[in-house]
């Protein structure tokens, strides 16, 4: 079992179909070209005696080539975050030596000077004439070999390297994608960072379904809209902040629809989608099916999906509970089981909040040097908090570590944020716990006003008191112009917390 097998099958079935196109440089690999390139680069990686292949660059043809060439060579593929400082990158590189590093030409000298790092520029990696020693024979089929090491964006301490073995990635693809299911004219616009699990999953899913990937290396809403129209893109994945920008940009252009009749499917995930953004998007893209995906690095990407039908049912539901499903992440994929547990590990019932546990063949739950955190029965604690309703729809409530403990009572920031967001003047809200002498922790809320609206703090506090309980009412509230998000749309709660702590001191 090896991810190379996915490319081998695609290359065998539709050798001349375009596989990947760099949306900025315009270069394209067909499936057979990508397959042959993987064979020759695998030879180069082996010739250097590398134990890992690292890629430090924006998305380009070197991204899928790096993944497959590593798999053929039998070394883990390690995509690194090019936004990190040189110092941070050096620290990560030292953990993966001896390494074959493919990076942008301006970084070759700096990192190539490190011990046991063989650095080549992306252009050189893509230049076939520099790779004349194709590997002889097949790739290894041991399902337990490591396919990918992904450094997770740890909020504290050293980043952890999640270990994804071939069996996890191949299981994910086999259970969620039908081989060759994409019509020949299908094109997918991929704008997630190449060092994110969604970027890895996009490569494999597209290859196995036979879809043409258009890569957008540096996301801007304007460029996304241009490329989607230019390539008549049929499917795309975005994180919530990207969709918010796309919606804003289209609104600023004064259009009532996005004019992308080819776009059949728009999936989103990676963070919490504000209800107002998804509602507007569904109006701007009337012919498009929306899906919300929830997954983690440690689970080889998606484990839960809220599909197009569920979106439409939720929007037109006569009940409050039905409409609320629009902000759920849907139901577990086939072969994936999900449970909610309390602090003592007891399984909770429908509607009860606790920590999300997941089990399935695509679940790794393993970190390099730290071993597996999966329990004896195969369950992985996600550290995400959530609840499941009576029909299996999963609702995310933030990180388990974000729970506010006020006077011995556990408060969920997500629950309070949801109430704040129902107020017509509120565009965005972040709730955190701050130290409090009397209660241990107190509730603090940063809210963003909608354009032209004024925030009445007392009215918001009253709303929380009415909808929830007085213990949930923010003791501290500030109006911000925007909330801090990372590039994949995750709210940087620790920054909100730090800002409150500074003000309160």
């Amino acid at each position, binding site marked *: 079992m090896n991810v190379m097998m996915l490319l081998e099958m695609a290359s065998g079935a539709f050798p001349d179909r375009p596989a990947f196109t760099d949306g900025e440089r315009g270069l394209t690999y067909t499936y057979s070209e990508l397959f042959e390139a993987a064979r020759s680069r695998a030879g180069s990686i082996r010739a250097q005696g590398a134990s890992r292949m690292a890629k430090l660059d924006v998305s380009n043809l070197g991204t899928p080539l790096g993944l497959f060439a590593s798999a053929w060579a039998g070394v883990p593929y390690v995509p690194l975050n090019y936004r990190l400082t040189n110092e941070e990158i050096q620290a990560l590189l030292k953990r993966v030596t001896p390494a074959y590093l493919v990076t942008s030409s301006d970084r070759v000298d700096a990192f190539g000077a490190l011990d046991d790092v063989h650095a080549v520029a992306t252009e050189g990696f893509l230049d076939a004439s520099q790779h004349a020693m194709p590997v002889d024979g097949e790739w290894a089929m041991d399902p337990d070999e490591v396919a990918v090491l992904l450094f997770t964006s740890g909020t504290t301490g050293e980043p952890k390297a999640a270990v994804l073995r071939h069996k996890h990635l191949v299981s994910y693809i*086999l259970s969620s994608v039908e081989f060759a299911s994409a019509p020949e004219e299908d094109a997918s616009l991929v704008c997630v960072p190449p060092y994110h699990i969604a970027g890895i999953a996009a490569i494999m899913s597209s290859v196995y379904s036979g879809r043409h990937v258009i890569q957008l290396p540096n996301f801007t809403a304007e460029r996304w809209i241009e490329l989607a129209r230019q390539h008549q893109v049929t499917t795309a994945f975005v994180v919530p902040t990207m969709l918010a920008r796309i919606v804003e940009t289209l609104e600023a252009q004064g259009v009532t629809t996005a004019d992308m009749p080819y776009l059949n499917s728009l999936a989103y995930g990676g963070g919490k989608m504000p209800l107002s953004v998804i509602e507007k998007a569904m109006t701007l893209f009337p012919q498009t099916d929306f*899906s919300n995906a929830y997954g983690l690095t440690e689970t080889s990407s998606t484990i839960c999906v809220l599909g197009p039908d569920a979106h439409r049912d939720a929007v037109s539901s006569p009940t409050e509970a039905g409409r609320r499903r629009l902000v759920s992440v849907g139901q577990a994929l086939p072969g994936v089981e999900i449970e909610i547990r309390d602090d003592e590990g007891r399984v909770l019932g429908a509607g009860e909040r606790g920590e999300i546990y997941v089990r399935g063949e695509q679940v790794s739950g393993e970190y390099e040097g730290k071993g597996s955190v999966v329990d004896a029965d195969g369950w992985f604690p996600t550290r995400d908090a959530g609840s499941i309703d009576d029909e299996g729809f999963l609702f995310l409530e933030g990180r388990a570590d974000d729970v506010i403990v006020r006077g011995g009572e556990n408060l969920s920031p997500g629950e309070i944020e949801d109430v704040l967001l129902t107020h017509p003047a509120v565009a965005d809200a972040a709730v955190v716990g701050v130290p409090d002498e009397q209660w241990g922790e107190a509730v603090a809320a940063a809210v963003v006003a909608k354009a032209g609206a004024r925030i009445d703090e007392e009215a918001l506090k009253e709303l929380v008191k009415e909808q929830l309980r007085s213990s949930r009412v923010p003791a501290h509230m500030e109006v911000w112009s925007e909330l801090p998000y990372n590039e994949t749309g995750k709210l940087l709660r620790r920054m909100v917390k730090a800002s409150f702590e500074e003000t309160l001191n």
Partner: protein
Amino acid sequence: MPKLKTGGRFKSAVCAGEIMVVTASEDDVVLTCGGADMVAPGTEVADGAQVHPDHAVGIAMGKRYISEDETIEVLCVKAGDGSLAVNGQLMLQKDTKQLPKTD
């Protein structure tokens, strides 16, 4: 034939079919394609061998096949004219549920 292992690959001795084992069982089994024992990739096979007429529905690339007791599952990685069988019992094609595209 060698014991089935997850990830292991085999080819047909009588047609172009090739498979990869997705789920293996502990038991010793005989996996056949077109009525003949499957062999390791790269094994030389005799010319002129025929697909047995009772094992001739064929296998399609990308389709998964399970044994009747659901203990063994394989993925067809190259199409062929022969049908797969475990201990003489034909394997069944497994449906993949069509899911919304999410990545």
